[in-house]
């Protein structure tokens, strides 16, 4: 390990500061400020000038990063966490974004006033950045070797052969095998996780002192996320690189960060070591966030805690505490912006009552995190509303081979899947991307025709239903889509969107009745009836998802397929939607098929859970049984990979991320599809497709080792 890391260091061969040309490796001693910080942001203000006004995206942010440590900036969308980091790189969108105040001391220089040519020399050499979207962050037309070599050419003036050798070394460092050949490949030949590894290799190319990662794993699956984060953590400690990780995922922070900055509405509201912030949150926003996340490590609450309301508009933020409007602990003093209170142990919070919380908490750790621990009693009867048996969906593609030859390829998106959904329950369907969960949802909605197998809804076979029967059945099965931003027609008002199915199916006798019904539906989902005049762009993400739910409810369905209904939403909003779904279920006796990739969300809302991998069912069990005693190696790996927002739990866990990549669905492994990544795989796994084994009543797992 040590030897390799030394090789990497010398390979970078840092040339004399700003001189270029000389390649003699000079000691890489960073210039630290008085407090020993490599990066020191002070009272930073960033504004965006838009046609509608000035958005004060970052409003007085200060934080430090010391050499070799990993600092997290956590917050929800729009809180200014990404803008803060782009400002450090001086990569704000021009001309709208501008730094209007503050300083950024890095390595002995102020980056706010540094002339652009010097700033350019710094980028990619002393400070590197990794972005959220690995699919679009690499240039699609250039080989990845060149993309890694570019900073080597520009900053270290390497010649082609040296740069290529270094690029190969970097690929090996980030865990990409067969590096020599891969250098000449293009980004589309890599998976998302592999592309993010390439981005990391680019970031590390010149041996930077600071690496900023902006939501580096948000677009990745949970098992790949674990691999990437382990890699980053390992490289950071081996190479002594300081890291700033920007994320909304509290679990990642708990597992990896040394120190945490919590941002809300353009300001840092709380700062401290990860242990401090997670175990003794002192700002009500942090407390709320920690309570709002559904968790895998704690008994399940009957209802999710939610932070009501929405963050303020940063064009015209309140003068007082920005969180006051949503705060449970609000007092009169909150009309004044609170000073940052030091509660000791390097822990600060911008709250008038921080010291009070500190005093109240002493002796009663986790007072505010006490949860009411009672599973929701739900009748356990055998009355399936939906029965899926041996369902398969194979897509036939053809690939050109040779002159006029074509090769038929079959993608088994869903392969021999059987399960049932009981009336009035929520069945969770989890799995990573490409596991077939969305296709399965589309099959049940009859948006796709199955290749084989049957779907029985309410005792009737959907496959043999006549078109007129199907029309009636369609009303009973409705859907809520993932993306509330693109699933509503922007040119229709909310009222028109909800009324459309009502008029298509002539469910109401006249226009007046339709209007009344729309108003009723809106209030059912917690929106004001006057919202019906609005257009989708005037609504927030959570409100749009409520509209999506109202549209589904309009048909008085008995089954709703929820396809990732909360994955595009922030934590505090996510809780509101989940609670709404649960309330509606209780009141209207709905049944949900809840498709998601977030294990904690699925655990919270579902009574039973189906785990899928590469088109096949791996495990089916009652929720508590599944999460307490996962039987299938894949389920175990999924649960191990998902970080939970608790520092103590996370630091105690051994990290064993699932190795390897999801196999191509064009060429799935024989026998058990999971065997290529399975720690328990043996020769026998390649030979037979494991049949589901009933371990306990209602608990099935498809693994021959059980």
């Amino acid at each position, binding site marked *: 390990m040590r030897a390799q890391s030394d090789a990497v260091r010398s390979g970078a061969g840092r040339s004399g500061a700003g001189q270029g040309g000389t390649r003699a490796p000079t000691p890489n001693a960073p210039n630290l400020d008085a407090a020993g910080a490599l990066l020191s942001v002070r009272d930073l203000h960033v504004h965006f000038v838009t046609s509608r006004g000035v958005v004060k995206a970052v409003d007085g942010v200060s934080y430090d990063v010391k050499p070799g440590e990993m600092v997290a900036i956590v917050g929800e969308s729009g809180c200014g966490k990404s803008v803060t980091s782009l400002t450090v790189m001086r990569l704000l969108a021009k001309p709208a974004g501008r730094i209007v105040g503050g300083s950024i001391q890095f390595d002995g220089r102020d980056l706010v006033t540094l002339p652009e040519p010097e700033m350019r020399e710094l980028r990619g050499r002393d400070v590197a950045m990794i*972005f959220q979207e690995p699919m679009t962050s690499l240039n699609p037309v250039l080989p990845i070797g060149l993309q890694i070599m570019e900073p080597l050419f520009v900053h270290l003036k390497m010649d082609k052969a040296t740069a290529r050798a270094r690029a190969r070394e970097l690929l090996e460092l980030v865990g990409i095998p067969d590096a020599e050949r891969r250098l000449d490949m293009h980004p589309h030949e890599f998976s998302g996780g592999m592309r993010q590894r390439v981005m990391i290799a*680019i970031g590390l190319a010149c041996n930077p002192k600071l690496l900023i990662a902006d939501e580096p794993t948000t677009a990745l699956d949970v098992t790949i996320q674990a691999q990437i984060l382990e890699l980053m953590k390992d490289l950071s400690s081996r190479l002594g690189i300081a890291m700033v990780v920007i994320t909304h995922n509290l679990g990642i922070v708990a597992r990896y960060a040394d120190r945490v900055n919590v941002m809300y509405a353009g300001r840092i509201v709380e700062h401290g070591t990860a242990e401090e912030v997670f175990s003794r949150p002192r700002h009500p926003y942090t407390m709320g966030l920690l309570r709002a996340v559904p968790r895998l490590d704690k008994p399940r609450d009957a209802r999710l805690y939610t932070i009501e309301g929405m963050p303020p508009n940063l064009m015209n933020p309140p003068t007082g505490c920005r969180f006051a409007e949503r705060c449970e602990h609000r007092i009169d003093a909150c009309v004044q912006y609170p000073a940052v209170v030091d509660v000791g142990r390097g822990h600060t919070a911008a709250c008038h009552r921080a010291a009070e919380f500190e005093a109240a908490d002493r002796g009663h750790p986790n007072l505010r995190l006490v949860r009411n621990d009672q599973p929701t009693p739900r009748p356990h009867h055998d009355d399936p509303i939906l029965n899926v048996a041996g369902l398969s969906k194979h897509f036939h593609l053809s690939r050109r081979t040779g002159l006029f030859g074509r090769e038929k390829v079959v993608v088994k998106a869903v392969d021999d899947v059987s399960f049932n959904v009981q009336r009035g329950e929520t069945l969770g369907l989890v799995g990573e991307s490409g596991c077939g969960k969305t296709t399965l949802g589309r099959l049940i909605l009859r948006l796709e025709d199955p290749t084989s197998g049957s779907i029985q809804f309410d005792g009737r076979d959907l496959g043999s239903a006549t078109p007129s029967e199907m029309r009636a059945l369609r009303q009973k099965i409705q859907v809520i889509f993932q993306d509330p931003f693109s699933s509503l027609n922007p040119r229709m008002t909310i009222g028109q969107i909800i009324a459309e199915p009502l008029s298509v199916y002539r469910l109401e006798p006249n226009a007046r009745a339709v209007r009344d019904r729309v108003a009723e539906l809106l209030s059912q989902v917690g929106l004001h009836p006057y919202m019906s005049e609005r257009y989708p762009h005037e609504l927030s993400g959570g409100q749009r998802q409520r509209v999506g739910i109202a549209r589904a409810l309009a048909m008085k369905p008995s089954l709703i397929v929820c396809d990732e209904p909360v994955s595009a939403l922030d934590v505090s909003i996510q809780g509101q939607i989940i609670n709404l779904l649960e309330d509606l279920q209780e009141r209207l006796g709905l049944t949900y098929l809840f498709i998601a990739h977030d294990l904690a969300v699925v655990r919270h809302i579902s009574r039973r859970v189906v785990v899928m991998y590469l088109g096949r069912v791996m495990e089916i069990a009652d929720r508590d049984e599944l999460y307490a005693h996962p039987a299938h190696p894949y389920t175990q790996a999924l649960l191990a990979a998902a970080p939970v927002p608790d520092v103590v739990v996370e630091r105690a866990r051994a990290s064993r991320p699932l190795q390897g990549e999801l196999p191509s669905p064009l060429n799935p492994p024989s026998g058990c599809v999971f065997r290529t990544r399975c720690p328990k795989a043996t020769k026998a796994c390649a030979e037979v497709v494991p049949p589901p084994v009933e371990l306990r009543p209602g608990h099935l797992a498809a693994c021959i080792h059980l």
Partner: protein
Amino acid sequence: MLSYIAHRLGMIVPTLIGVAVLCFFMLRIMPGDIVELKLRGDGVAVTEEVIQQERARLGLDKPLASQFVDWMTGLATLDLGRSLWTDKPVVEEIGTRVWVSLQVAFMATIIAVLIAIPLGTLSALYKDTWIDYVVRVVAIAGLAVPSFWLGMLVIMGLLLLFRWLPPIETVSFFHDPIRNLSILIWPALAVGYRYAAVATRMMRSSLLEVLKEDYIRTARAKGLYERLIVVRHGLRNALLPVITVIGVEFAFLIGGLVVTEQVFNINGIGKLFVQAVGRGDFTMVQGLVMLVAVIFILVNLAVDLLYGVLDPRIRSKA
């Protein structure tokens, strides 16, 4: 790659058969009788018998089905028949004229590319500055001004300012390149301007779009020079849609030089086309349509191959 090209070339045959069938029957629907026009056009009194003889000689008295079979079998042996008007083989009539038209089209393309790529790039890089405004005005003017009218302006300008007119007789480029170019550069400029205008606008919007991409931000974060970012990361991606526009416009040029050739008095296939249609010279029109179709297909193939060269994603799909 080779198999892809072979496949695409193979696809030309059914496409051309379709064009041949359509073109044959559509022309037969057109009113006008070439024999009447040819023999009685000048008001000369010709007996019905002579007319019938001429019809028989040209094969126009045969039933439609048999004429169609003749046309299709001729095609199979690359025999496009004889012009009904001049009696010379269609291939020969086209062959003597096609090169000059192709040359004008090629020159116009080169002019368009040379103008469009730098101007469009400048315009995008200096968006909303005076540079951008000037480029956009020039480009809009190019779309608004008809090329034949611009051609007339060019001729008038040369005459009035330099007291010089391009020579009347065209000569082969290989025979006398200077004389050849001094004639053909003017029509090439006249049509190239419009062509450049279309491509400039595409270049501008395409580059603006690309510069917003995430990988441009990545390139900036690597600390690359701005020029490297624009040229290596921006232009190559931005060129793809521009190439499509250039390809489509080129194919249109071949058939669309009609008026410009008239203005500059160039004996190309545009002029031939107008004459053939005016005379009702079926065989000639059919031959020209087939030629334009072949060029269209080949240009499209070239565009697709160029796409493959520039974009590895397309290369691997093919």
